[in-house]
């Protein structure tokens, strides 16, 4: 990826990379995920460490 710099500034149009575990493995960034797995990732809830949650 190339980051273009203009007017002494940089980063225009550059997104954040978000790495998540897809099944047992990782995938570079989420834009390569299929629609169903994207939806699943969106729905994931965090698990608390409280035993009685």
């Amino acid at each position: 990826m190339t980051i273009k710099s203009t007017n002494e500034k940089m980063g225009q149009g550059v997104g954040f990379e978000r790495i998540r575990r897809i099944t047992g493995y990782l995938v570079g960034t989420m834009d390569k995920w299929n629609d169903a797995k994207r939806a699943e990732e969106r729905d994931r809830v965090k698990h608390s460490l409280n035993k009685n949650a």
Partner: protein
Amino acid sequence: MIQSIIKRDGRIVLYDQNKIAAAILKALEASGDGNAMDAARVANDVQRELEGKFSDQAPNIEAVQDAVEQQLMNHGFNAAAKAYILYRANRTRAREANTKLMKTIDEITNIDARISDMKRDNANIDGNTAMGSMLQIGAAGAKAYNEMYLLRPEHAKAYRDGDIHIHDFDFYSLTTTCCQTDIIKLFKDGFSTGHGFLREPQSIQSYAALAAIALQSNQNDQHGGQSIPNFDYGMGEGVAKTYKKAFARRLRDAVEDYLDLEDAEYTVSAVIADAEKTTGEVAKLCSSATYIAAVAEGLVKAFKIDKDTAEKLVKRASERAYKKTDRDTQQAMEGFVHNLNTMHSRAGAQTPFSSINYGTDTTPEGRMVIKNILLALDAGMGHGETCIFPIHIFKVKEGVNYNEGDPNYDLFRLSCQVSAKRLFPNYTFLDAPFNLQYYVPGRPETEVATMGCRTRVMGNVYDPTREIAYSRGNLSFTSINLPRLAIEAKGDEKVFYEKLQAMLELVAQQLLDRFEIQASKHIYNYPFLMGQGVWLDSDKLSVNDDLREVLKHGTLSIGFIGLAETLTALYGHHHGESEEMQEKGKAILGFMRKFCDDKSQELKMNFSLLGTPAEGLSGRFIRMDQKRYGKIPGITDREYYTNSFHIPVWYPISAYDKIRLEAPYHALCNAGHISYVELDGDTARNVEAFESVVRCMHDFGIGYGSINHPVDRDPVCGYVGIIGDVCPRCGRREGEEIPFERIEELRRKYPKMPAFQGIE
């Protein structure tokens, strides 16, 4: 009078009664029903029927064929009529497959992968590249052929309709899934990649380089994940070689410096050789006192120096050699990780799908490997990116690394720190009863190891003396659409189990059909996997032997998806919601496991039950079921079926309960399983909290687990961590630009900040 007919593509051609008679004759001959005279008579009546219906209009080809069918029956040629109908149906299927294939290739060629879900079916293949597209086109062609020519009609129908999913169907006629490569055995005396011979490696750098090449080579022979089960033990041998050489060199340097000699190499080598002879040992990271004394004594004699000085020289050489070896190992591990994230397989469309298992080697050499591979993982790639490959698997074992005071406990702690930042390693638990039953101390091949998404191979019904992880793998797997069986059973448990039994039989038969194709292959089809003895017993085959017997060390696995939706469809709620449902869930998977065990005993082959990874499948089954049954609340109303036996991702539950409820299914799914816990970023970075989750998994008998937490990166300032809407380091929002001065300022503040990528 019929003059012409309209073909399928719209062209109008002259009507030719002879052609019709010829087609009829073929049907008559196929059924042994009649002769050319009969054919001519039927053809005459076909023409009469068409004239009655169309007078002098041109009929289309379908109407002509309808008339042929009708007249064959009118003349009492029922068997021939049947043959003709079948022929028509087959032709239609072939035509449709061709059209579908061309449409698919059209989509691969012309549509951006960001828009085409089909092109993102496997997230590790970049469908936008030339080689990635070529791979997808090849896969589409192979699938069309395999469905048409290799599947029994009932299997083709079940696959097409979404009752089952045949994984890696494009490779149906070609190869097997995966393998655990024993690198110690492979490296002994060198090996050939199929493109050239490599000598036995002599340093940790070449050990690491060749390990990557081994994974790459095997990836050309199999479609699934490639794994090293003994990374620490194997690389440890390279560390030992590097140290031995470094010690000799450092000792020579020390002697030359101290005595101001120009070249002491010959004499020092002789001293070392002598010490090796008398003690039967070589220089090691922690050499024995006997060996060190023998070397010192040799120096005293050879160089006429006093004992104190000699001992000092040996000590200095040992310390320096240790540092050098540690540095070399660190570089070798970094190189290994970089290699696996950049080297190509499958014509450049993918990197090898690689895994490495480690954690239990307690020798100083093995420990040095484990420490440095974890540090390389922690450091990330060139710009601090998280490494995607290899999958790191840390083997947890009581008495080895699990408890304080265990020899590798420090490395287990380090692994938690790294995983809390980089998502790897995952953890496999050798103390889970279904893993412990195979474990023999001192025999690392009996330690369970994982490959790919979650595949596990241990038991061996074919050869019970070889219940090991090394040199084996999965042959193929097919998954059952479990929720559909439950929906179709309409709440009737008995009907559900009957349907499940029938589906298990169907899948077992299909796996055996596929095995027949695989079994008929030869060594030369797999120059690395079989030609280099990577697969168990393949070194005993001769060139004309087929692979049938050696492949029986592998597994045929029956997978499934959506236990949660299945329970909801049958009983109204899932196993996260009540203990009663947990029992029902265990009963269903227990039934499936028993089927696999019985089949294994019956055929003396390894059938096993798999909690399918289901990357592409999560959407495929449910889309088809939504079309059939609509959106049923709690069952088909989302965009995906829940993975394997997991508690649904959207269901609020504590980590403790999730682990407790999922653990029993690990024992049942002997082909592979994994459980995840989702932590928020702050908790994950608390190493105590992170470790407590791993310990909870261990104590409940989880087989394989990992902890998910968000890992984000801002490519502009290089920050790795959790990024909400705003980057916590440079303060920009997604897509926003920031001034150079700000970056310079940050760079001064964070000197370890990675260099920025390709700034123009």
